[in-house]
């Protein structure tokens, strides 16, 4: 199993009383809530944290892409990856954007990823996502064409990476007479690993598990039962194609907090995870699920489950559901060992900073996790697969 430190880079200095006046931290929250002086401090603190993960022995670090919100300050993740490329030495760098349908020219992604891959000598992991619903409002992109734009942009990028240029691309949304990206990717056998982060969708799983792709499916922020269900679905789809999915094809991303004891962990994490859940993630249905973002069938399901969505998430509810792992090293080890044995994921992406979690607690979390959780799990999973 491999361990990654994932960052969202939230605007942790957000005035949390914003929700008395605004219904979301996305799309319409005025950017006057952002103070560039504080932002300057936060960006540099967060980059330090990602670099620290390299020293602590993580296998990888992850940046991501979100637009026009206080939840994550990485609209252009390549800027972060570029800064990290030179300051880290060993870790993989996963860019878990880019949100392909949001971009007018997907070749910019082919270029950006190839540059990071070249600078790092092949430490890039290439994420491809559709972006979240709110971003179709912010970016003025039609969600009704989200799926087809994703497919086409993906095909175009793959062509740019794997076919000698110049080549021709003839699509519905994108057309190029001279696909000829310089630089070529460093990992050219056949291309950098591709990860597909998703909130959970059978269409995405079927596509990622196809034998032509075998991409790593990454389940983001979901209860452990959902994680188990979707990963089983991936394995079943793979089996249907006549091959066995490996652990390398399955990843899970979730917030985690580990401290000296269960009690200390819960006390230290509470306000910060609840700020994440109740303030930074806050958005109405109309932002979260614009028309076409998911199929009509899944939408009907989501609308029927709306009562459940409306329930306020608290530290207790997310610990209970296994959406957030929190506790002493023993507790965290035990849960992760159990989930891993049961579900069989090979990549674990932990969000060790979330919401308003301050620098000193983030570092403490990273240190305890890397010293008392990671090595143990490395051993048990290595023993099991040996």
């Amino acid at each position, binding site marked *: 199993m491999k361990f990654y430190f994932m960052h969202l880079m939230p605007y942790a200095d957000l005035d949390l009383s914003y929700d008395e006046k605004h219904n979301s931290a996305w*799309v319409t929250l005025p950017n006057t809530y952002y103070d560039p002086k504080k932002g300057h401090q936060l960006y540099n603190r967060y980059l330090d944290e990602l670099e620290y993960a390299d020293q602590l022995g993580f296998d990888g670090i992850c940046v991501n892409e979100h637009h026009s919100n206080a939840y994550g300050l990485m609209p252009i993740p390549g800027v972060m990856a570029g800064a990290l490329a030179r300051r880290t030495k060993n870790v993989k760098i996963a860019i878990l954007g880019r949100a392909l349908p949001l971009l007018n020219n997907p070749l910019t992604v082919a270029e950006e990823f190839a540059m990071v891959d070249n600078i790092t000598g092949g430490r890039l992991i290439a994420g491809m996502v559709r972006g979240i619903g709110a971003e*179709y*409002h912010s970016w*003025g*992109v*039609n*969600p*009704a*064409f989200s799926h087809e734009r994703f497919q086409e942009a993906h095909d175009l990028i793959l062509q740019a990476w794997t076919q000698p240029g110049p080549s021709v691309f003839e699509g519905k949304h994108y057309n190029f007479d001279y696909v000829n990206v310089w630089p070529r990717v460093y990992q050219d056998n056949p291309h950098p690993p591709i990860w597909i982060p998703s909130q959970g969708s059978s269409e995405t799983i079927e596509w990622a598990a196809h034998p032509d792709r075998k991409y790593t499916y990454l389940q983001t922020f979901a209860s452990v039962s959902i994680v188990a269900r979707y990963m089983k679905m991936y394995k079943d789809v793979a089996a249907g194609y006549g091959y066995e999915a490996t652990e390398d094809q399955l990843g899970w991303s979730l917030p985690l907090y580990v401290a000296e004891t269960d009690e200390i962990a819960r006390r230290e994490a509470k306000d910060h995870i609840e700020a994440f859940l109740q303030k930074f993630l806050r958005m*109405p*249905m*109309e*932002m979260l699920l*614009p*028309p*076409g973002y998911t199929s*009509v*069938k899944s*939408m*009907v399901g989501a*609308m*029927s489950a709306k009562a459940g969505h409306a329930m306020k998430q608290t530290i207790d509810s997310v610990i209970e559901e296994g959406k957030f792992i929190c506790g002493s090293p023993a507790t965290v080890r035990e849960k992760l060992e159990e989930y891993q044995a049961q579900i069989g994921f090979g990549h674990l992406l932990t969000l060790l900073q979330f919401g308003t979690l301050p620098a000193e607690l983030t570092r403490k979390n990273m240190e305890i996790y890397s010293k008392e959780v990671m090595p143990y799990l490395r051993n048990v999973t290595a023993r099991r697969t040996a």
Partner: protein
Amino acid sequence: MSFTESLETVTGTKIRLMRGGKGAPLLFLHGASGASRWLPFMEKLSETHEVIVPEHPGFGASDNPEWLDNISDLAFFYLDVLDHLGLDKVHLVGTSIGGWLAAEIAIRNETKLGSLTVVAPAGIRVKGIRKGDVFMWSPEETARNLFHDQAFAEAMLAAPPPSKEGMEILLRNKLTSAKLAWEPRFLNPDLHKWLHRISVPTLIVWGDDDKAMPVGYAPAWRDLIPNSRLEIIENCGHLPQIEKADRFVELVNGFIGEVTR
């Protein structure tokens, strides 16, 4: 209520049609919420016209064809519908997205049209006048913003939640509306250039308290279509055919009576 329902296959695409009444043909083009029911204004119009109400491809019980990507596709499809139904001198009436569609049809080919009525149509931009963001409104905001008279909104909000099938239709309608109108929002940037080609008599109807398509758009339409007349209905929101059904029918009948005299 006297109407019949049928499914028609037009150039390979199946659409659901409601029809009622006798007289000169009147083709009604619905807006974003579709046309699943025969409404009182349709019944009233059918006293003097043969009223034909299709559900656009992608809406309600009609097919959702592969070829449908934008308003232009839909406009050309309706030229096929006019041929298929053998309509001539038809009075084309469209509301909201349907009004936009009616104008898109007319700029392409108006030879089969007797007149054109557009009700709070989408499709053009007047800089500085912002359209309501129907894709961002909650169900409650939508109900409140569609009507001037909040009794209509209350009634809409008090209605029992739709069945699973009803919900599916709502979502399909919303999806097709997004396809047509998400970006640029309720706009064909080229439409305003060609509205001058419309020469059939045209009636423009607008509610004075329209929060979806503000009444500030009305004079722009009047100025862009040469042979047009503008009627503004007082104390009325985005759906005059519902909120002021009698006045709406009176205006449409009066206008058609005038132009066919």
